């Protein structure tokens, strides 16, 4: 009735072989591996990894991700682009522009040599067509054009005729944009990839997805045109019709789909890609090859903050809000594993090209306790429990809880945190049934005013329920100015907002791009709108994988 293990020698042998094979895989070499040499067909082709869904359509983005911007800006050229150093608008599809005296009418003159990839001239009507399509898209995208006269009402269906929107093609090369309110930032806003023109055939091609079979059917006006498209990504080649073709040093751009950020980084390390935007970094990460790589970092134009509901209880008192702000210790707050991604925020607007960030906030726990006592809550006595609402997906985020811990230990203030589904949370926030919320605001316009509009929203639509008419006036004044004069007005608005403490800026987010050192011309952009047109490759003569330098 018994069978000894010796009776199944073949089973033991099979297990031994299987286990040995698996051990080899699990314990196999993971460093100093040979990479993949760049093929000749990839010479001068910039290979960019992406992990999110990417469609050759300016109007389908889910988030303004780096690769989306780079992809769209490779295929299409908007009216203007921002100078990498100063952030100032520069001619792109538009050759020149002029404002009316009241800054409500912007007239743009298109460059006469602008051509679609099939040779057709780029006309003002192509922009009108594209922007009318954008106004029919989701509100998260369409709102980009809401400063245009009647644009919002057209989007909401309150106006049926697109002609009512303040967009006019005066002739083939003249585009006129009429605004509801003066807005000098509109010019830099026109650098948004969302506002690219569309050829009259594009909507049909995108609808039937014929570009997979016939890439040339997707007619674009950017520096590159579609060469190949499949589930693994897109390959672009230089567009011979592009007006600035002489300045394009790349032969093409390939967008390679990866399953994850981690796989994308491995593709760069293996020599199969050159750029991996939005890479997640960890200190203990070791690269499997010796390919020379570097990590480019840039501050995202956004801020992580705690927003007070200034209409609630003790939060109406400025001294209480100041005490809560002073009690925060940002350096301690940021976890070690996030130090590459997060930096302390000492103002509402981070550093950006042409406008360094300010230092408007301090931290002083003693002063915080003094202010709280002065407000009638010494040691937190008598202070009601603060209620914070967080979305379910934020369960596990350590930062809201860390703030609450800090307030309890320094000030004796307790907090009740609720994690809610989005619908319930929206109802709670609309009803103002919260003391503070934790959130992130991200700019979509490369301008400080975009973040400061947080404090000019009508109270019922604002997380803080706080609105300062002086700031509203300052931003309105800034919208009529340009250059240093405008920046000075915005700085005054930011100082005033931070002094009133309707919200506590906590952290700025840093974005990282893994770059092979072969890629040259890289520049930082607060909205991650680097154009591959400005980049080039500096390859060794054999275009082989460099082995000399260790990975960064």
């Amino acid at each position: 009735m018994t069978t000894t293990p010796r009776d199944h020698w073949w089973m033991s042998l099979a297990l031994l072989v299987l286990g040995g094979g698996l051990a080899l895989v699990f314990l196999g070499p993971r460093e100093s591996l040979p990479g993949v040499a760049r093929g000749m067909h990839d010479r001068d082709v910039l290979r960019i990894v992406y992990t999110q869904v990417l469609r050759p359509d300016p109007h389908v983005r889910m988030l303004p991700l780096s690769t989306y911007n780079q992809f769209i800006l490779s295929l299409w050229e908007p009216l203007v682009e921002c100078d990498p150093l100063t952030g100032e608008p520069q001619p792109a599809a538009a050759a020149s522009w002029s404002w009316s005296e009241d800054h409500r009418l912007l007239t743009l003159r298109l460059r006469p040599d602008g051509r679609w990839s099939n040779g057709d001239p780029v006309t003002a009507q192509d922009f009108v067509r594209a922007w009318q399509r954008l106004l029919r898209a989701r509100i998260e995208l369409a709102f980009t054009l809401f400063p245009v006269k009647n644009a919002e009402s057209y989007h909401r269906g309150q106006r049926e005729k697109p002609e009512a929107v303040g967009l006019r093609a005066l002739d083939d090369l003249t585009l006129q944009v009429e605004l509801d309110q003066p807005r000098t930032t509109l010019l830099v806003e026109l650098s948004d990839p969302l506002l690219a023109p569309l050829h009259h055939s594009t909507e049909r091609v995108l609808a039937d997805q014929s570009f997979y079979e016939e890439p040339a059917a997707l007619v674009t006006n950017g520096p590159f045109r579609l060469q190949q498209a499949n589930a693994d990504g897109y390959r672009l080649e230089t567009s011979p019709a592009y007006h600035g073709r002489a300045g394009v040093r790349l032969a093409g751009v390939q967008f390679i789909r990866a399953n994850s950020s981690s796989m994308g980084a491995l593709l760069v390390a293996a020599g199969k890609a050159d750029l991996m935007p939005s890479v997640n970094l960890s200190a203990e990460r070791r690269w499997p090859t010796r390919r020379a790589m570097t990590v480019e970092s840039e501050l995202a134009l956004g801020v992580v903050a705690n927003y007070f509901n200034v209409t609630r209880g003790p939060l109406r008192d400025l001294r209480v809000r100041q005490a809560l702000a002073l009690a925060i210790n940002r350096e301690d707050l940021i976890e070690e594993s996030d130090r590459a991604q997060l930096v302390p925020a000492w103002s509402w607007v981070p550093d950006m090209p042409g406008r360094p960030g300010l230092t408007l906030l301090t931290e002083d726990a003693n002063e915080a306790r003094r202010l709280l006592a002065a407000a009638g809550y010494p040691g937190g006595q008598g202070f009601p429990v603060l209620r914070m609402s967080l979305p379910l997906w934020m369960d596990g985020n350590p930062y809201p809880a860390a703030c609450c811990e800090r307030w309890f230990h320094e000030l004796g203030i307790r907090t009740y945190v609720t994690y809610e589904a989005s619908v319930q949370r929206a109802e709670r926030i609309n009803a103002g049934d919260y003391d503070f919320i934790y959130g992130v605001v991200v700019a979509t316009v490369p301008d400080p005013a975009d973040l400061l509009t947080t404090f000019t929203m009508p109270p019922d639509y604002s997380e803080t329920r706080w609105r300062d008419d002086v700031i509203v006036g300052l931003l309105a004044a800034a919208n009529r100015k340009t250059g240093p004069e405008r920046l000075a007005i915005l700085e005054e608005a930011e100082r005033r907002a931070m002094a009133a403490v309707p919200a506590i800026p906590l952290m700025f987010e840093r974005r990282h791009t893994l770059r092979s050192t072969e890629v040259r011309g890289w520049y930082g952009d607060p909205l991650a709108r680097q154009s591959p047109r400005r980049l080039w490759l500096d390859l060794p003569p054999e275009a082989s994988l460099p082995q000399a330098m260790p990975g960064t």
Partner: protein
Amino acid sequence: MKSFNGNNGTPWWRHWRFWLLVWAAGTLVLAAVLLWDARSWLQGAPRATFRATRLNLWPLEILWWLFIPAILLVQKSLTRVDRHWPWAISLHGLLAVIITALFVVAQAVRLLLVNHLPASFLPVVVNDLRWVGGWSYVPALVYLALILALYAVSFYRQWRDGQRLTGQLQVANAQLETKLVRASLDALKMQLHPHFLFNTLNSITSLIRNNRTREAEDIVAGLGELLRRSLDHKQEAMDTLERELDFLRRYFEIERIRFQDRLKVEFDIDPKCLRAQVPSLLLQPLAENAMKHGISKDPAARLLRVSAQRDGTRLMLTVYNDGPALPKDDAALGRGIGMQNTHARLLMLYGDEARLRLRDNTPQGVRAEIILPFRTSSSP
């Protein structure tokens, strides 16, 4: 399908070969679907990608289909190693780890192919999966749950087979009892044989006429005792050799009247053997045969000896008569009802441990020998 029928009448759909065939067919269909779907990619078509194939899109759980036969085989083999349960537990733990590792490697291979990474990066991708939480331990849990379920089914079957065996033993016991009853009836039949009975009654009449009433009473009592024991259906299947010999003595007392002074009965019994347990009414058929085919056939024959000896763990019983030798077709003698019943009872009770032999005795007579295990009522 008829060929699937086992010797024990198992229906074809419960035979393992049928399910192996189903598995093989399923595997072929699965492979065909996957390969057909991925043919463009395998042929290196320009726009084809591994990413869009079912090899990539279908869940990895289809691997369980491939593992099923191996799991069943291993589980069945290890169930037999019931006296080596630490080995079985260790091996199942190892298999759980291996299966989990196979899932991780399969996932890594997919990632490798999808992302066009070189094959040398497989260990890198496997390790990378660990950091991003891609090492799922669910397969280990599924495997262990599956094994537990299989063990439960296996133990249930063993229990059911045990129940069936118990039933079969009960039937065998019933058959044994039937044999015993039949032996009793055979004995009764012999005792009630008209010739035997008439001879006995005539002998009793003669004794009474000769005023030998005391002897007549003894014979009547002996005949009564013979009939009583033969008719006692409730008697035990086993009895002591002492009681068995007592029964024989009663029988010979009656027979001695028939044969007058011609019959000489000797008992050569080792006292140690008296407590031995023997099947009830075991010796009477042999004595009957000796009288019928030995003493009765030869007027010169007169001796009948019953002996019992212990030989270690065995008990040897012998019934000897000095009558004529066995006929050439002695097999016919062995096929007699009494001998057949005796043989069947010994086989049921002792299996190969008991033996019945009938042979000529040199230089004269015939011996019937029974060898069986020496057991007493206190034996285990």
